C-alpha cells in the first residue's frame, strides 16, 4: 500500500487517533492543522486544561473564552479537567452545555479572583451549585474549595467518587454536600480545614479517606455498612456504624487527642493502625478488643490520658495481648507503647507453653533507655516465643536522656541483635 500520508486515513481513524488527546493545547493545535482535523473535535471524549495552559497569553477573558469554545465544540465530552484559573461565573454555562454526557469533572476552584468576589458578595459556594445539573456525573474532584454552606446539588444519584482536597469547609456544609451524593463508593476529603461535627450516611461506601487539619476539635459519625477501607486523621470523637466488612482501618490524630471511639465490631479486620500524640486509654483498649482477628497492627501513639494531661501508658500484659490477637503476623510498635509492654508485670504470665504462633515480622522503635533490662527481656521473649519469626527490626531513634545509660543500652541491643543474627537487625 502506498503511503499517502495521514491525509489518506479514513476520517473514523483520524478520530480514533485524536480521541487519545485531551490536553487542551494539543487539541487547539490539532484544530488548526486542517479542516478534517477540526471536524474531529466534536468527538473528543476528554479535555484537560493544565495549570499553566494560559500563562503565556495572560489569563482572564482569554482563558474563559477558549475554555468555553472548546467545551462547546466537544459535543460528546465525558471528562473535563480544569486546573488553570477560570471565572466561576462561566461554569454554569459550560456544565449546562455538557450535562448529558459528562461523567468526570475535576476543578481547581481556588482562583484568587473568585475568592475576592465571593467574599465581597457573601456567597459561600454558590458558584458550585451548577454542578447539580450534571445528572450523569460519576466522579467529582474539587481542589482548593471554600464551602460555607451546602451546595444545592439536589441529588447526584450517579456520583460514585467524590474527592475534595485542600479546602475550608463548614461542618454542616460538607455534611450537606455528602448528603446530596447518597450512592458514593469512594469518598476522600484530604487536607480539609474543618471543625465541629460531621455526619455521613453512605450505604454503598467502600473506601473512605478523611484527613481533617486545623486547630478546632472535630467529631465524626459515619454510617457505612459496606466500607472496606477507612483512614481517618484529625477527629477527637469517632462513631462508626457498620464495621462488618471493614478490612483496613487507620485512625490517626496528629495534634490533640482521641477521646472516644464508638465502634460496634470489626469481625473481618485485617489491618489496624493507631497513630497520634494522645489517645484515651479507654479508646485504645476498646479498639484493640474489637480487632481480635487483626493480622497487621501498627501502634504509634505517644501518650494516653483522658484529659489534657499527657500520661504514660498503663502496663500491658504481653501474654494476654498476643493471646487476644492470635492472627497477628506483622506488628509495629513504637516508643511509649512498647514501653507499656515492658513493664515489670508485663511478663508475669509468661511460661513455656506460651507461643506467638503467627508472628512473622516485627518493627520496634525504642526511644529511651529507661527500664533497659526489662525491655531487653521483652525483646528476647518475643524472639523466643515466636516460632515463625522471620524478621525483627529495632529502630533506635533520638535516645532521650543521652548519657551513659543510653550507650550501655545500645550496646546490649547490639549484642542481642548479634546473637539473633538472621532474624534481628538494627536500623
Amino acid at each position: 500500500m502506498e503511503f499517502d500520508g495521514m491525509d489518506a486515513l479514513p476520517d473514523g481513524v483520524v478520530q480514533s487517533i485524536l480521541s487519545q488527546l485531551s490536553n487542551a493545547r494539543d487539541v487547539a493545535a490539532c484544530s488548526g492543522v486542517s479542516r478534517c482535523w477540526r471536524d474531529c473535535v466534536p468527538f473528543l471524549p476528554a479535555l484537560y486544561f493544565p495549570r499553566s495552559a494560559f500563562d503565556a497569553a495572560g489569563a482572564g477573558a482569554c482563558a474563559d473564552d477558549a475554555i468555553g469554545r472548546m467545551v462547546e465544540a466537544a459535543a460528546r465530552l465525558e471528562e473535563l479537567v480544569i486546573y488553570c484559573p477560570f471565572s466561576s461565573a462561566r461554569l454554569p454555562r459550560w456544565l449546562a452545555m455538557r450535562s448529558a454526557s459528562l461523567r468526570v469533572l475535576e476543578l481547581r476552584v481556588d482562583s484568587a479572583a473568585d475568592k475576592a468576589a465571593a467574599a465581597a458578595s457573601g456567597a459561600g459556594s454558590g458558584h458550585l451549585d451548577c454542578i447539580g445539573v450534571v445528572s450523569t456525573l460519576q466522579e467529582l474532584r474539587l481542589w482548593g474549595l471554600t464551602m460555607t454552606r451546602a451546595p444545592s446539588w439536589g441529588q447526584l444519584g450517579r456520583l460514585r467518587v467524590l474527592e475534595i482536597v485542600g479546602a475550608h469547609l463548614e461542618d454542616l456544609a460538607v455534611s450537606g454536600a455528602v448528603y446530596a451524593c447518597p450512592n458514593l463508593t469512594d469518598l476522600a476529603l484530604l487536607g480539609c480545614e474543618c471543625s465541629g461535627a460531621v455526619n455521613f450516611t453512605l450505604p454503598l461506601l467502600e473506601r473512605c479517606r478523611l484527613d481533617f487539619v486545623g486547630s478546632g476539635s472535630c467529631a465524626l459519625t459515619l454510617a457505612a455498612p459496606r466500607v472496606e477501607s477507612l483512614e481517618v486523621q484529625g477527629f477527637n470523637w469517632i462513631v462508626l456504624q457498620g464495621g462488618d466488612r471493614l478490612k483496613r482501618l487507620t485512625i490517626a490524630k496528629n495534634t490533640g487527642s482521641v477521646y472516644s471511639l464508638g465502634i460496634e465490631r470489626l469481625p473481618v479486620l485485617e489491618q489496624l493502625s493507631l497513630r497520634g500524640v494522645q489517645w484515651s486509654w479507654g479508646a485504645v483498649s476498646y479498639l484493640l478488643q474489637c480487632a481480635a482477628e487483626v493480622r497487621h497492627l501498627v501502634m504509634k501513639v505517644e501518650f494516653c490520658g483522658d484529659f489534657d494531661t499527657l500520661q504514660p501508658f498503663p502496663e500491658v500484659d504481653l501474654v494476654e495481648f498476643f493471646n487476644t490477637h492470635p492472627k497477628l503476623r506483622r506488628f509495629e510498635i513504637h516508643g511509649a507503647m512498647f514501653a507499656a509492654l515492658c513493664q515489670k508485670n508485663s511478663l508475669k504470665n509468661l511460661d513455656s507453653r506460651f507461643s506467638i504462633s503467627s508472628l512473622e515480622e516485627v518493627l520496634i522503635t525504642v526511644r529511651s533507655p529507661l527500664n533497659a533490662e526489662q525491655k531487653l527481656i521483652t525483646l528476647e521473649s518475643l524472639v523466643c516465643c515466636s516460632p515463625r519469626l522471620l524478621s525483627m527490626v529495632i529502630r533506635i531513634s533520638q535516645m532521650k536522656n543521652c548519657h551513659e545509660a543510653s550507650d550501655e543500652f545500645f550496646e546490649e541491643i547490639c549484642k542481642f541483635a548479634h546473637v539473633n543474627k538472621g532474624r534481628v537487625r538494627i536500623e
Partner: protein
Amino acid sequence: MAATTADGNKVDEAVGGEKSKMITLKSSDSEQFEMTREAAVMSQTIQHMIEDDCVDSGVPLPNVGSKILAMVIEYRNRHVDASSDSAGEKEDLKSFDESFVKVDQPTLFDIILAANYLDIKGLLDLSCQTVADMIKGKSVEEIRKTFNIKNDYTPDEEEEIPRENQWAFE
C-alpha cells in the same frame, strides 16, 4: 460461535464439515499465511467471514500487503497466547507492544489501516495511541510537517484560527 473442546480441536460449522484448526489468509500481493483459527478470530472481520462461510480457499485480504499482514499475525499470535493474568506476563506483553510500534511512519499507518480493516481493537488502540503521542506538544506547523498533512484552510480561515487559539501557540 465455534466451541472448543478440551484438547483444542475446534468444532467447525463453517469449513465444509472438516475439523480445521488453521485458517489461510491471502495478502493483497497473493502471499499466503497460516494462522490458528483462535488467533484469526481476534479480527471481527475474519470472524464474520468464517460465520458467513466464505473461507473455503482461504480468506482474501485485498487491502493488506504481506509485510503488514505478517506483523499483524505476529501481534495476534502474541496476544492470543497471553491469556494469563500474571504480572510478569503483563510486563512482557507491554514491552512487546512498545517495540512493536517502533516502526517508521508509513508502516505505522499501514498497521493502523490494517487494524481498522480487520477490526482488531487492541491493535488499533495501540497504534492510534502511538500516533497521538507523536502529536503531543507539537505546534500546528510541526504537526503538518511531521505527518505531511495538506492545509486545506482558505487564507481567510487561516487568519481566524491563530487569533482564536493564540494562547496555544505561545
